[in-house]
């Protein structure tokens, strides 16, 4: 066969062996040259050449020797932090969270601050300043950040990358966020919908690990859904997949406010919950959080309003189940992640659906978005270094086990 494919062989196998070795290092943490050859199936010569190349590039470093075996001890290698870092950002209307991780997915620094209320380019400058500060804390330089992913509320057009429908951040629709941040930080920047990232965060490190058909319902200021089908994120034609605020539940779509905002969001979004609480005679409050507190204190009106909200969300979940048949539904967002809420939704779901699809609260809570941003940023970095068009599957993300061994924040 080697005579049929002259140059195709050497380049392809070199790429394949590099990628194989990298995958093993990701999953095993530390390993010797000989064991690498055994696990990958490539010859000792090939794997040794790859380790030499990786060492030259700063991708791996020696970290001790094997022990307890017969014969000479062997040098162990692991992925080095020096080869590059990634930045994940979760940009919300109220809070901004950012984190830096290395190529082996070790989180090195993380912080949250209130989003600059002036919006627009002030927010972008805030992100750049936060990135620089985190880089210092992580003992690295901003120039070593090789991949950046920003999560925002709203719809990201898959064709142009522009953010549309992000009402919570003033003037952000006017700015070319990716271009400006690339200019400020010097690395490629990708923008992604924040609920999509929260879903990815939960499939990587949260309660949806290893599940390829899963829906994440985010209930906060607004209502959104992230969806993975057959292991891939669903975006839809215009990037508007997941806008379940427009589900025909809870309000009459012939009413103009309900139609514009979406029936379900009008009825069960944060302002809808507040409106129903006050209309039912509740004492005015600032945030839905307070209604939950009153519910726990025994306030009957609060109990009823939250119960009705759970019923509306359960109907939405029943729609998702009938349409997509996910294995699991995760509830997140500042309202959705409240522990009692998932329990109430599960009870109400059994009233409108005979299928028993589990509904779980998000484990990562308000960190889900930034963890998802890191997951995507790391995937992009790996693809840049090792991606090959012909290989049948995408690079798998390292399992959380490796993080625990390698140390984390």
């Amino acid at each position, binding site marked *: 066969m080697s005579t049929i494919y002259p140059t195709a062989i050497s380049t392809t196998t070199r790429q394949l062996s590099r990628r194989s070795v990298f995958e093993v290092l990701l999953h095993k943490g530390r390993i010797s040259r000989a064991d690498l050859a055994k696990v990958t199936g490539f010859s000792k010569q090939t794997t040794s050449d790859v380790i030499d190349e990786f060492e030259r590039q700063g991708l791996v470093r020696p970290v001790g020797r094997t022990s307890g075996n017969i014969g000479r001890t062997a040098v162990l290698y692991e992925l080095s932090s020096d080869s590059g870092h990634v930045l994940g950002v979760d940009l919300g209307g109220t809070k901004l969270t950012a984190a830096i991780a290395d190529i082996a997915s070790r989180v090195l620094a993380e912080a949250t601050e209130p989003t600059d209320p002036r919006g627009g380019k002030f927010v972008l400058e805030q992100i750049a300043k936060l990135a620089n500060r985190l880089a210092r804390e992580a003992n690295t330089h901003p120039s070593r950040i090789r991949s950046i992913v920003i999560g925002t509320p709203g719809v990201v057009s898959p064709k142009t990358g522009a953010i549309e429908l992000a009402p919570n951040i003033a003037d952000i629709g006017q700015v070319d966020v990716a271009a400006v941040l690339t200019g400020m930080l010097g690395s490629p920047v990708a923008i992604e919908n924040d609920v999509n990232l929260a879903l990815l965060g939960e499939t990587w490190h949260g309660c949806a690990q290893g599940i390829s058909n899963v829906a994440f319902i985010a209930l906060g200021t607004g209502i959104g859904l992230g969806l993975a089908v057959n292991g891939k994120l669903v975006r839809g034609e215009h990037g508007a997949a997941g806008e379940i605020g427009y589900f025909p539940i809870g309000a009459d779509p012939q009413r103009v406010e309900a139609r514009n905002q979406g029936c379900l969001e009008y009825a069960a979004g944060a302002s809808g919950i507040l409106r129903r609480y006050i209309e039912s005679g509740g004492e005015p409050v600032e945030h839905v959080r307070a209604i939950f507190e009153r519910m726990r204190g025994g306030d009957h009106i609060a109990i009823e309003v939250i119960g009705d909200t759970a019923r509306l969300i359960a109907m939405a979940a029943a729609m998702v189940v*009938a*349409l997509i048949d996910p294995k699991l539904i995760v509830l997140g967002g500042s309202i959705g992640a409240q522990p009692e809420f998932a329990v109430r939704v599960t009870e109400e779901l059994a009233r409108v659906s005979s299928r028993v699809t589990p509904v779980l609260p998000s484990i990562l809570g308000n960190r889900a978005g930034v963890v998802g941003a890191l997951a995507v940023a790391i995937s992009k970095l790996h693809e840049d270094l090792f991606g090959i068009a012909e290989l049948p599957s995408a690079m798998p993300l390292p399992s959380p086990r490796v993080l625990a061994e390698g140390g984390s924040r």
Partner: protein
Amino acid sequence: MILERQDKYLRQFEQRAKRLMLHTMLTLPMANLTSVCESTGLPLNIVGVLAADLARSGWIHLADSSANTEVDHATRYCLTGSAGYCLGVDLGGTKVAAALADFTGCFMAEMTEPTDARGERHVVDQIVSLAKKLSRSAHVDASKIQSVMVGIPGAVDPQSGRISLVPNIKGLADCGVLSLLQNAFGSNVRLDNDVNLAMLAEKTQGSARGYNHAAFLALGTGVGMGLTVDGKVVRGATGAAGEISYLPIGRDTTSFEALRTGAFELEVGSLAIIKRFQAQGGATTATVRDVFGLLSAGDKAAHSVIESTAAAIASAVTALQSILDLEIIVLGGSIGSRPEMVERVQRAMSRVFSRPVHIAASQLGSRAGLIGAVCGALTGLHDHYLGALSDANSVDGGSHALRQP
């Protein structure tokens, strides 16, 4: 320099490359090697060598057999029809339709019969007998059928292959259909939900041709949906994606009946239409066809019933479009494909959904299930000989059209 164990990777690469080439030749019949290179991204020297290999195996042949044996960029190949055969079956509660197709997807013979009312394994025997009749009719040896796809009116678990929710065919879920069929035809037999196969047909050569994000809504006595996302049919975690009978839409979403049969089916199925029509004073012997017929006569009851049905369907479409942002939604089935219903759903959508939604009527009608079954069987045939092209999870036909006599 040959490195040990790299052969496995190269074999995978070669299989994948051949499969890509075959897919191109199906989509662009009579394509020359330059087009194949452009479509697959493979270089000419590799394409040339692989094409010669495919020809030696009998899957393709030179389009111009008189040409000299020099293979270059202008050389054209075609798929060899007689290289293999497949069987597509659309198994319904009342009728079973089957078609035999060759390696290029060309229909060789087709038949429809009333489904054996005894159900259970009698239905399997009926399928085997149909295969024999079709083979005789096409002058093909029945043992050359190397791939079978059977569409059933129920859910198929993608992992285990077990079927459920098939009330229309007695005992089908319990008789081990898959293994009985495999005993008769060999291991390359697959089952799928009939609406999923209709979606495949619409995507391959129907109203959804060329779209990557699409849905097919079958609305008739029962209701069901097939879904395509990123070009692949979606089955869900247990094969129950598209069981839209259970959408919580309609007057009754919580009763025992609603949970058992499905609120949406109780609202828009043909039984529901007839009941509502009768409740509004319509004739007790009316059928759905009669109700639609009375529309043009200006009958108030007919108008009201059809309008409320369209409104409920628009709710389902709203839910579908909100969650998936599809490019097109195809309406089919005995109720869905009627132009009067399609118009009313489109009008209702413009009242309740602020973004435009592309809704089209099915053009394949009652043949969608059979066409989809043959598409699936054809992919299974190519996978059998040349390795799977797409992920193991999806059995999808390519974008080529099947040729029917």
